[in-house]
């Protein structure tokens, strides 16, 4: 089925932006400077929950160099957010501040130092209210209500049932319930968020470290009641996002307002602590799972019952809440499924779309639960997974259509690579254990973030007049994942051209056709499909022109790597793409083409059915081997194996880089990372010294492999996602490895050394009794 004779894709082409990044020439948003530019900062609430009684800005305004101080009355009061039913956030707080750091006022000054002086001089009178800090008790009667519209602090409530769960459990050979607990994590891109806003001549230009120029354009235009055409959003180089830069921060809105007032460009930026406060990172949750299995361990039905901490605002969290349960029936064929979830409001920073959106913590719970079942029934963890593994061309119980699916092959290969059978048969040395876990993720969301009938991706290609280069214009954003590189590879492949001659203009709403941007692992498939279409249109036009020039029928011509030759007459001298393109321009004008992509209608009709739909799903398996020190609980990671079904690989170097990076984040969340708060809701480790992201010394060896002959019918040349799926199995694989090594289960993440040590101590004590 798959066509493997590619000239450009499938090859480890060097990164499109490699050179500018290694020389320091690449300009990120915070590096930009404009004539007459001011610097802006926002004032954050010192309290987690407080009524704003008054704000006095007069002293701040007296400070030399302070050009503007704004409060809620100077900005639009229109609430923003993800879905109209849940617009709950304001540019600046109007009556109440809802978490420590919530935006209360903003300043624009001649330099950064003056901003801090101005912020200090703003006098805010607060009435401190009792904060809601514990999501598990947020609905209790003595808890204050955070948002007027949401009783009992329930932000989102989900109840879905597919099939008769009671019946499934009644018929089961074994029914088991387990509960696991997750933690708050933060994406922590190394580049802090910033925005430069320039409101001049009735037009607003915003440079922003964003993952989506289109959504930002939409949100900003809506907030200021501007036509979309008068708002230009540009993402310069973006220093990582992982979901944290997918929604407006207040920097854009308040920067725009400050620029309008002062008539000057305003650069707004967060410091590291402010990034942690803005957050939009991983939701913490409590995950209760009950499954019934037959005597072979085959799943008959599952009921997952979750409660999660959404923080002070909805953010993208309504999607997270649905994703948490929606994606679980992917890797295993679960015939009957019940999914309940409540996303709670608390007076903590809002949570949102963190790499692997909603999936990793529930997956940890589910994969741990699977091992508990396997152990209780005396089934090998690999076997129980093989027995339940999804097959290709199936549909999940919640109506996701799965085309390609190498779940079984991934499991088998991971078993081989990790020497699973031998290790299980012969046993491992004391303190050593091995665990396995699965994952799957969407290749682009089936529906946009806000309701619209716009296509999800589009692009243009223009071949230069003399044919020596071609430019791809695309609204996509390369946040580091390498999308520019692979899109240029795809364009060149489709055009019969060379990657090395491709240029790209991207991430600019004014010069590029619409693309929804970098989230939900969508650009390879969705943007790539549009690029393929445009490239093929160029190819057709080149062949057509060459046919006139060579006096040969178009069907007899092929164009590869910029050389056009006759298929049937090898003796006919080939001509170059450059010659043909130049001739085309002389006779017919610009050689251009466009491409567009809209996914097919996907999913069921029940409430929440769209979340989790996708044209294609990646599948992966990770196995991890650990050595546990019984005295200290220290976890030494011997090796991790990742086997991925990603469809056709576009760039193997980028691909494995994505796996390494996702595994790195997943492992960080497994053992180290957690945002901690004091009893007033203030972050205590909002810096890179206290929030433990792994260093080069902590990173274990990884083996990363892909299934060679996977082909996805819905993807360009058979491609699907890789960037997020690899975060899915990690926590579960490690929990299961520790379980295997020591026979103890750590039921909450992070799986710190201390928790392992405590679990071992408890086990010893109970054995001694």
């Amino acid at each position: 089925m798959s066509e493997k004779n590619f000239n450009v894709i499938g090859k480890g082409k060097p990164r499109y932006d490699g050179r500018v990044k290694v020389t320091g020439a690449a300009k990120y948003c915070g590096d930009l400077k404009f004539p007459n530019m001011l610097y802006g900062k926002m004032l954050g609430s010192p309290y987690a929950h407080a009524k704003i009684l008054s704000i006095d800005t007069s002293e701040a305004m007296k400070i030399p160099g302070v050009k503007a101080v704004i409060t809620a009355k100077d900005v639009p009061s229109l609430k923003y957010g993800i879905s109209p039913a849940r617009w709950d956030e304001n540019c600046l707080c109007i009556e109440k501040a809802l978490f420590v750091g919530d935006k209360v006022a903003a300043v624009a000054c001649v330099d950064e130092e003056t901003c801090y002086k101005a912020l200090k001089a703003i006098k805010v009178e607060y009435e401190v209210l009792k904060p809601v800090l514990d999501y598990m008790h947020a609905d209790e009667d003595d808890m204050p209500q955070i948002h007027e519209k949401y009783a009992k602090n329930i932000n989102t409530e989900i109840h879905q049932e597919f099939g008769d769960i009671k019946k499934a459990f009644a018929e089961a050979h074994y029914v088991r319930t387990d509960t696991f607990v997750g933690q708050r994590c933060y994406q922590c891109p190394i580049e802090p968020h910033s925005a430069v806003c320039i409101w001049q001549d009735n037009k607003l230009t915003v440079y922003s470290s964003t993952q989506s120029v289109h959504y930002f354009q939409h949100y900003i235009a809506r907030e200021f009641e501007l036509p979309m055409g008068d708002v230009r959003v540009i993402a310069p180089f973006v220093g990582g996002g992982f979901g944290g830069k997918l929604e407006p921060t207040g920097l854009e809105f308040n920067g725009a307002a400050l620029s309008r007032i002062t008539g000057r460009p305003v650069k707004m930026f967060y410091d590291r602590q402010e990034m942690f406060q803005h957050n939009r990172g991983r939701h913490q949750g409590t995950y209760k799972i009950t499954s019934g299995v037959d005597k072979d361990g085959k799943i008959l039905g599952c009921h997952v019952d979750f409660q999660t901490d959404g923080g002070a605002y909805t953010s993208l969290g309504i999607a997270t809440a649905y994703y948490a349960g929606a994606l679980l029936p992917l890797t295993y064929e679960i015939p009957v499924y019940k999914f309940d979830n409540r996303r709670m409001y608390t007076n903590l920073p809002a949570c949102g779309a963190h790499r692997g959106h909603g999936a990793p913590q529930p997956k940890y719970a589910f994969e741990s639960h699977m091992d508990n079942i396997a152990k209780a029934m005396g089934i090998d963890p690999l076997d129980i997974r093989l027995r339940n593994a999804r097959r290709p061309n199936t549909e999940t119980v919640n109506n996701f259509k799965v085309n390609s699916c190498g779940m079984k092959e991934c499991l088998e290969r991971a078993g081989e690579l990790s020497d699973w059978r031998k290790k299980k048969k012969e046993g491992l040395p004391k303190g050593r254990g091995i665990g396995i876990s699965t994952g799957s993720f969407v290749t682009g969301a089936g529906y946009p973030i806000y309701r619209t009938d716009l296509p999800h991706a589009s692009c243009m290609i223009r071949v230069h007049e003399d044919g020596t280069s071609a430019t791809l214009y695309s609204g996509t954003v390369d946040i580091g994942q390498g999308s520019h590189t692979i899109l240029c590879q795809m364009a060149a492949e489709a055009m019969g051209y060379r990657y090395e001659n491709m240029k790209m203009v991207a991430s600019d709403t004014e010069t590029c056709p619409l693309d929804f941007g970098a989230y939900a692992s969508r650009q390879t498939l969705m943007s790539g499909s549009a690029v393929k279409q445009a490239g093929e249109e160029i190819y057709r036009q080149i062949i057509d022109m060459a046919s006139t020039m060579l006096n040969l029928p178009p069907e007899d011509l092929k164009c590869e790597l910029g050389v056009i030759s006759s298929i049937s007459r090898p003796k006919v001298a080939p001509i170059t793409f450059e010659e043909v393109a130049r001739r085309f321009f002389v006779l017919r004008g610009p050689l251009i083409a466009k491409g567009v992509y809209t996914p097919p209608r996907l999913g069921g009709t029940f409430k929440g059915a769209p979340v989790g739909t996708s044209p294609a799903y990646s599948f992966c398996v990770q196995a991890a081997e650990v050595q546990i020190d019984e005295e200290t609980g220290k976890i030494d990671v011997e090796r991790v194996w990742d086997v991925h079904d990603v469809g056709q690989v576009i760039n193997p170097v980028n691909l494995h880089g994505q796996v390494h990076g996702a595994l790195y984040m997943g492992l960080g969340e497994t053992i180290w990372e957690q945002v901690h708060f004091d009893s007033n809701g203030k972050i205590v480790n909002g810096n890179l010294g206290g929030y433990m992201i792994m260093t080069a010394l902590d990173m274990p060896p990884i083996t990363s492999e892909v299934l060679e002959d996977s082909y996805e019918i819905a993807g360009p040349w058979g491609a699907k996602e890789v960037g997020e799926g690899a975060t899915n199995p990690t926590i579960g694989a490690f929990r299961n490895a520790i379980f295997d090594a020591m026979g103890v289960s750590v039921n909450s993440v992070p799986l710190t050394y201390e928790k392992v040590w405590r679990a071992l101590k408890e086990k010893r004590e109970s054995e001694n009794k």
Partner: protein
Amino acid sequence: MSNMIIDKDGVRRYVVSITVNGDEYTKMVKSNTLLVNFLRDALDLTGTKKGCELGDCGSCTVLLDGKTPINSCLMLAVEADGREFITVEGVASHEKLDHIQEKFIEHGALQCGYCTPGMILSAKALLTRNPKPTEHEVREAIAGNLCRCTGYINIIKAIMDASGQEIPM
């Protein structure tokens, strides 16, 4: 002590001469101006990044006296008076990339690229003082440079390859 003036608001400003990538710059700075901001704002050498301003991330790494990697967010411009620095802009010569830079591209040792300038300078310092490091020494040398994208694997490979040694892992 460098020359100092007191402006009309009573703020002290110092004249400093700092050599960056072989060029000497004489500028006026405040006593609290960080070296990283001096490089980025006064010289517009924005290849030196800021990720934390607390000495935690290493994005602001520059080489002091051409060889010692330091966090430029932890040094004041007045302390840097009379000293020499290399920033990422000074690593390639005349459009020709340094060997380490080439290896970073070849191995996909960068994704978003925000940590890359600091990584390259730490790697450069390592290979200058220890041309054949072990894999562990490579990890140690870049342990102060946080990268959120790559999981370090390809960075370690690139540095080992740049040292002409076998690529681990």
